[in-house]
């Protein structure tokens, strides 16, 4: 997995949870939260306040304020009361209070937005500074709980600087406006933070931020064990940052499906021409990497093995042509270059798990190079590593899998395959060459219709085939003796992450008591886990759903983008539960799905050592 922009959103999660707690505040905040986030405006946000601020920012940007304001004022007064009514408490109570008035404060802040907007120019540098102040205090007090003050100070300084950068943001005074009465530059806040004794009210306000920081630190410690979460596309801030760094210009898709807000959905038509335009301006992208990006984008190459191989070969070229710039260390510079290539590829098309694992391997190898190795030797080493990886993990592994799987094909068999998988194709061709008599049922589905490619290969060879579409599998399954499926990845809870439709095939096969064999190389295994197909997926171009090939006049959905109630969903992957899978054929043998985490653990460590 490519480490994403490891950002405060990790820490932001707890605050999400906390915000929901305060009772009487929540309806108002909830209605604020439910304001439709129209477009991604560059809204400033603080660590603690972002969830609430984003709706507020959308308020700022033109939605109806008048209805918010009066209620806001009411709430504000309410919040003040609550804050004052809890004078002293134990530590636990403080947490609760932190939650509550963290909520209050934020509500107050969101209310403040309304007031700020109404009286525009009062820039509230004061406010901003008071907020940072209160945050710092909270940070400090939070710091006292679990971590050293120095780190909190540094954090606070960073935040203060960030806050100072953002202009016109909504913020509110802390529950103790008197504390902020100092006014002035953020720098003062640092001092004041040290001076002011932690007050309970401030605690409440910023207890959340400190806790987030705590969570983040322990997260850092455990980062080796937990796979990184992927880029969260429902988080405006991160998307904004990603956009700024982006090479490929992407327009957001219209009519996004709500359930998949956390995944990127972009207009597909515009990317290819844009990329072609900027080809000669992309100095920092190696041409072979650019080629791979273009091929991915246009779906010229698809399939885990092909994409991974092409990418590694492109990186190999890039390393051959690479020379260390002066004043830079070889390993670090090369790693950052590879990182930039990877970002480019991600923009063209999200990485597959196989590609992610290969990149992790390569970065690992670069990191393990000896520092004093001369550059040419290091490059040769890396190049041989890449060659070795491709050979061993992809090519030879494929051959071993074929050897294993062919033993499961007997004369007179009827095999069902779905879509296009390179490994399954090799298995069938090898079995045919061995002279086995069997029949193949090729199942295909829209919109990719990848089965036709495989069908063509098989028919050219002379293998007897039946071709049908995925809806007809209940009809054809009673004839089938065994199902062979490929996979994009197999996850640690045994779930098979593969082309969309695989889960339905496995389910119907299971209902008809037909064994399901998944053929997958071990380099595609991953330690992440997944329960359903929604949390992590890839969204394709929705326009291909509207167009039906072969029925050009069938255009009921040609104008789908004009109806805001209508969405088209083009999912690319799905997650097959492990109980539908009889066996996974890997180069280490044929294993049940429960053995996948064992393989990940044993051979995953091993593969980096060679």
């Amino acid at each position: 997995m490519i480490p994403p922009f490891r950002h405060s959103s990790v820490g932001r999660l707890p605050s999400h949870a906390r915000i929901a707690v305060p009772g009487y505040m929540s309806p108002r905040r909830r209605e604020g939260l439910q304001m439709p986030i129209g477009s991604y405006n560059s809204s400033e946000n603080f660590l603690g306040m972002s969830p609430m601020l984003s709706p507020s920012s959308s308020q700022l940007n033109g939605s109806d304020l008048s209805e918010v304001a009066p209620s806001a004022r009411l709430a504000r007064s309410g919040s003040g009361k609550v804050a004052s009514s809890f004078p002293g408490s134990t530590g636990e109570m403080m947490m609760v209070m932190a939650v509550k008035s963290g909520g209050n404060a934020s509500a107050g802040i969101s209310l403040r937005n309304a007031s700020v907007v109404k009286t525009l120019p009062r820039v509230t540098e004061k406010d901003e500074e008071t907020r940072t102040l209160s945050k710092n205090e909270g940070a400090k007090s939070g710091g006292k709980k679990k971590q050293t003050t120095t780190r909190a100070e540094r954090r606070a300084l960073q935040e203060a600087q960030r806050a100072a950068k953002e202009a016109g943001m909504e913020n509110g005074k802390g529950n103790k406006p008197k504390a902020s009465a100092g006014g002035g530059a953020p720098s003062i806040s640092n001092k004041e933070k040290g001076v002011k004794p932690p007050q309970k009210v401030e605690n409440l306000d910023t207890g959340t931020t400190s806790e987030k920081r705590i969570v983040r630190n322990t997260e850092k410690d455990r980062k080796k064990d937990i796979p990184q979460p992927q880029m969260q596309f429902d988080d405006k801030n991160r998307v904004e940052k990603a956009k700024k760094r982006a090479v490929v210009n992407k327009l957001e898709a219209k009519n996004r499906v709500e359930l998949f807000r956390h995944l990127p959905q972009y207009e597909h038509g515009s990317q290819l021409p844009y990329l072609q335009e900027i080809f000669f301006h992309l100095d920092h992208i190696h041409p072979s990497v650019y080629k791979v990006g273009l091929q991915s984008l246009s779906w010229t190459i698809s399939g885990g093995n092909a994409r991974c191989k092409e990418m590694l070969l492109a990186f190999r070229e890039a390393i051959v042509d690479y020379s260390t710039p002066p004043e830079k260390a070889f390993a670090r510079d090369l790693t950052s270059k590879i990182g930039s290539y990877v970002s480019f590829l991600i923009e063209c098309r999200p990485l597959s798990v196989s590609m992610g694992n290969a990149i992790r391997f390569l970065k690992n190898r670069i990191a393990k190079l000896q520092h004093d190795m001369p550059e040419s030797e290091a490059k040769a080493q890396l190049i041989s590593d890449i060659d070795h990886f491709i050979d061993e993990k992809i090519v030879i592994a494929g051959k071993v899998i074929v050897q294993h799987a062919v033993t499961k094909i007997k004369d007179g068999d009827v095999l069902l395959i779905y879509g296009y998988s390179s490994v399954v194709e090799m298995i069938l061709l090898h079995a045919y060459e061995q002279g086995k008599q069997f029949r193949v049922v090729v199942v295909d589905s829209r919109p990719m219709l990848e089965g036709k490619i495989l069908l063509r290969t098989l028919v050219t060879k002379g293998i007897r085939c039946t071709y049908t579409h995925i809806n007809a599998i209940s009809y054809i399954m009673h004839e089938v003796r065994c199902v062979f499926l490929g996979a994009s990845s197999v996850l640690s809870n045994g779930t098979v992450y593969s082309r969309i439709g695989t889960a339905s095939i496995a389910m119907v096969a299971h209902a008809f008591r037909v064994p399901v064999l998944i053929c997958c190389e071990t380099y595609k295994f991953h330690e992440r886990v997944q329960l359903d197909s929604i949390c992590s997926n890839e969204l394709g171009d929705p326009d291909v759903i509207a167009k039906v090939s072969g029925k050009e006049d069938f255009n009921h959905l040609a104008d789908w983008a004009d109806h805001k109630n209508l969405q088209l969903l083009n999912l690319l992957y799905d997650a097959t539960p492990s109980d539908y899978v009889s066996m996974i054929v890997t180069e280490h043998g044929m294993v049940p799905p429960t053995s996948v985490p064992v393989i990940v653990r044993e051979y995953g460590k091993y593969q980096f050592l060679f």
Partner: protein
Amino acid sequence: MPDIQAHVNDFVLKLKRRKIEGSQATARQTAELLRAVVSHQRLPYTNQALALLDAVRDVGEQLIAANPVELAVGNIVRRVLHIIREEDLTSVASAVDGLGLSTNSDDDDNFEHDDHPILSAAAVAATARSTLRAPSLQTLLEGLPESASAPRPSSSGGDSEGKSKSAERKKLKHDVIEAINELIQDIETCHEQISEQAVGLIHQNEVILTLGRSKTVKEFLFAANEKKRSFRVFIAEGAPRYQGHVLAKELVAKGLQTTVITDSAVFAMISRVNMVIVGAHAIMANGGVIAPVGINMVALAAQRHAVPFVVVAGTHKLCPLYPHNPEVLLNDLQCPSDLLDFGEFSDCMDFSTSGGSPLLHVVNPAFDFIPSKLVSLFVTDTGGHSPSYMYRLIADYYSTDDFVVERRIKS
């Protein structure tokens, strides 16, 4: 009746060429044709019901043979036969009733009508016991003696008998035609009756999944929308006809949140769905469903995720037969060019393979069979039923004698 035979032949041709789309249209046209057959039939003096039955069975056999997969045709034929039998029984009962009057008058006085209610009730009860109830062993053994046995006790009232018989003859045809009209009315209004139940099954913020396009489902969802239930719909497009697109357009026009997904995405999305609502082509006697292809996959996925699977269908789709190997015997294989264009693979296929069997076989079935254990609820125009109840409805609409529509060999 040459002109009626011409009509029948026309209809048979239409069925053979699959020109009529949909069970509702087929059912209605079948009923209208049979009504014409009944009205044109000249009835003999005695045993009219038998004549009618023969005539209808004759025509019905031709219709069923024209398109055996369209079960609605057979359903309507059997319904009409059942109607004839029932009308015959009720007219016999009223005849007995009248005859009971005459017997009464024989006993007491010809013009005393006060005792009619009592005695006629008794007489009716007596006849009911022997005729209107499910066939008793006696009647089973004696073939079709209902109309013969009942008038026996009335042999004394010759005059009135003759009068009632002629009235009865006209009445039978009239009653049958009226009943067939009611049947046609039911067929046409089944959607309204089904849609009335929508509000009881759909709550707020529901997420519904359907596949392809069923008119019944469409009306069902419109009715719920009308009652201001807010819900969103995932529509699987339903290869190879892709009628899901059409349904999506129609739902969006009414302001419903709609998302069109591919059929392969059903398993992925069903975990976030509250209810699956689909239409059916036919409902078999054991509660199994013949539905457009792909719906069995949806039913299995719904079972896996414990999502209720609701089938909406009018009662004209209820077939009294039990399915045997329905995937093959009750299926229609359609044109393969929907999947693979003609000539698309001609460049790579070697047509000289030995054995003569084709190298590439394209399968395009039209229907799927869903076993009754996967269905949670049937919503019909008579209300909601569980699959285990469907066999009972058959007794309401069909007679066991009619399950096999074949000309009886006249002994």
